[in-house]
């Protein structure tokens, strides 16, 4: 991954920023320069809620490169408190995972570029117990 590509997405990855369209009111993720619903350019960056519910999940055992250390891990779609959905992974899972379970956003390492490259941080979701 190029350094600028990672850097451009820091707001979305670190702070779970999306956009709100000032024209039609739609809140969406990931952040775009235009509203995905009405396509207006009049959008502003907003912080999305940091809590939500699991909509669907899959326990992944065959990872892409760079994720071997985390296997097995849950890939999930989370519906945040304001209805916006995001794709992510769970961390600190110590029990059963079920549709509808409540989760909170936490800041974690996502992967890294070997021993000499960048560390990629972002948001994962942790079950609220």
């Amino acid at each position, binding site marked *: 991954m190029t350094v600028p590509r990672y850097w451009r997405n820091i707001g979305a990855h670190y702070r779970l920023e999306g956009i709100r369209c000032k024209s039609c009111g739609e809140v969406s993720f990931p952040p775009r320069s235009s509203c995905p619903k009405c396509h207006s350019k009049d959008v502003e960056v907003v912080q999305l809620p940091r809590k939500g519910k699991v909509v669907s999940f*899959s*326990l992944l*055992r*065959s990872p*892409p*490169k*760079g994720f071997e250390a985390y296997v097995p891990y849950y*890939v999930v*779609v989370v519906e945040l408190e304001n209805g916006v959905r995001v*794709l992510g992974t769970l961390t600190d899972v110590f029990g059963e995972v079920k549709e509808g379970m409540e989760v909170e956003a936490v800041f974690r390492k996502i992967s890294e570029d070997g021993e000499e490259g960048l560390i990629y941080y972002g948001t994962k979701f942790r079950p609220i117990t």
Partner: protein
Amino acid sequence: MSDNPVVVGTGLTKIGRRWEDSLSDLFAEASRQAIEEAGIQPQAVFVGNMVAGELDGQEHLGLALEDRAGVFPLVPAFKVESACSSGGSALLAGYMAVKSGVYDSALVVGVEKLSEEPSDNITTALAEAADADFEAYYGASFTSLNALLMRSYMKEYNVPRNWFSEIAVMMHKNAVDNPYAQLRKAITVDDVNRSRVIADPIRLLDCSPTGDGAAAILLTKPELAKGDVQVELAGMGVGVDTIGVNGRVSLSDVPATARAARAAFSAAKVEVKDLDVLEVHDAFTIMAALALEDIGVVGKGEGAKFFHEGSAERDGKLPVNPEGGLKARGHPVGATGVYGAVEVVRQLQGKAGKMQVPNAEIGAFHNLGGSGSHAVIGVFKRKR
């Protein structure tokens, strides 16, 4: 007289680990069959491929392959890419080229090599069909995204796990008769259920294998086609949806397929009930079930049941994937759509051998890119 392009030649290569053959070798093998059958040279070539750039370091693929293959004089050459629907999209490009009159003939070749890298490199490359920054970035593999759909579907419609396993079993059974198939061994429901979990609930035998292959179709304007029995590409349609699963309205269906079906059937002036044979994109068993629903063969939640009841068998209500589908025939990603198209064409030509659906006159193939974001459907008709 219809201006629909006519299929004058097809080519297929056996799918598998083709260690001795490069991308251009596979391209040559498939395209030579099509050109020799037709006796016509193409005026343009459209190559369907997804990961040759990533895995082989070769962009500018259309030109590179036709030059290295040397099967015909160099012509305008284009790589067409839409993830796993690259083949279908390449066929769409050829269809538009000929139907519009810009070119008299177009060669469409889907070609892919997936067997030469370690599996984690393949997993990473195929994940490029998903959103790089907001799905692959977080470690979601392509299989895990499809698994989210399978879990959601199973929960919503209460479909037993075994019904999906049965789909894989049927595909393997069909492929035993297919000399081009990658996997030609029968399996059992038990084999599927005990195979290792890739991303729960998807197991190894729910997934199509990764392999190498090329398929080719040569299309021409109707005036150039000879012979009594001709197969025309009667219509095509594309449907789309968001690239990320987080943007989908539901995780239990694929509206992109429904949109493609409506457009394709309308263009071809057919209805679902007119189909004699259907090739669906069963990259994972769940996708086979969803395809039947979204294409309109059955209602929501009834897809797996259609297979379970035997209605998809060669002698069933509507034969689906009589050649083994992606699951057993194989899924060399960018080539797959063209394999599906060629299989339909050969059914309509009466050249399907042991896999023949009797009196097949109208057939369709379905090709899906991403986790449900870009569907291509093509309808072929036998002309008299």
